[in-house]
C-alpha cells in the first residue's frame, strides 16, 4: 500500500506515470497544482481512491461542489500517511 503524492498538473511528464501505476489498496493525494487533475477525465481511470487537499483546491478558484472529488485537510492527510507504508511521489 502506497501513498501517491501528486503535486503537478496533467501536463507534467511524471505525474501521469505515478497515477497510472496506482493499484488497489493505494491512495493518491493531489496537493498544490496537483489539484488540476481534479478537472481531468483521466482521474476517473485511477485504480485507487484519489483525494485533494481542500485548501489547495479552493485557493485555485474551484468550488467544493464543482468537482466530484473528496477534499481533505492535513489531519486527514496524516491519517493517510499513517495507513500507507510505501510512498510514491
Amino acid at each position: 500500500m502506497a501513498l501517491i503524492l501528486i503535486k503537478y498538473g496533467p501536463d507534467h511528464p511524471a505525474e501521469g506515470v505515478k497515477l497510472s501505476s496506482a493499484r488497489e489498496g493505494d491512495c493518491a493525494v493531489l496537493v498544490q497544482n496537483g489539484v488540476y487533475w481534479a478537472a481531468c477525465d483521466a482521474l476517473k481511470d485511477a485504480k485507487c481512491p484519489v483525494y485533494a487537499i481542500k485548501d489547495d483546491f479552493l485557493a485555485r478558484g474551484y468550488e467544493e461542489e464543482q468537482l466530484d472529488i473528496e477534499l481533505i485537510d492535513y489531519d486527514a492527510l496524516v491519517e493517510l500517511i499513517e495507513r500507507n507504508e510505501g510512498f510514491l511521489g
Partner: protein
Amino acid sequence: MSKKVLFVVYQSPVGSIWVNEAFRTAFGMYGEDVEPSILLMSEGVVALARECKPEKLGLLSVKMVQRYVKRYGTPVYAVGEDLDTYGVRDVDEGFSAQIIRKDELPELFRQHDYVIFM
C-alpha cells in the same frame, strides 16, 4: 530489513542538477540499511547519451558518477520509449543502465518502498 529506494529523474541532465543530485543521493545511502536504485525517464534519459557533456558549458559532468555506479553496483534503469523520443541512439555503457519499457514502470515502483521523484 533494508529499505529499497528508487530515485527518479525526469529533468534534463544539462541545465538542471537533478541527475547529479539523484546519483549523489543514491550513493549517500550506502552507509545505512538502504538499497538505492536510479530511474531515468523523460528528458532524464539524455544523461545516457555518450556525447552528453554538460561540462562543455562549464556545468558539472554527469559521467563522474559512472565509477561509483560500478563500485557500488547501483542499479540504473532508463525508459526505452523515452530514449527514442529524445533521440538517444549511442548509449554510454558506463552507466550499466537496464532499458525497460514504460509499461514495466508500475512493477518497478512496486519493488521499492519509496519512490522519490527529484
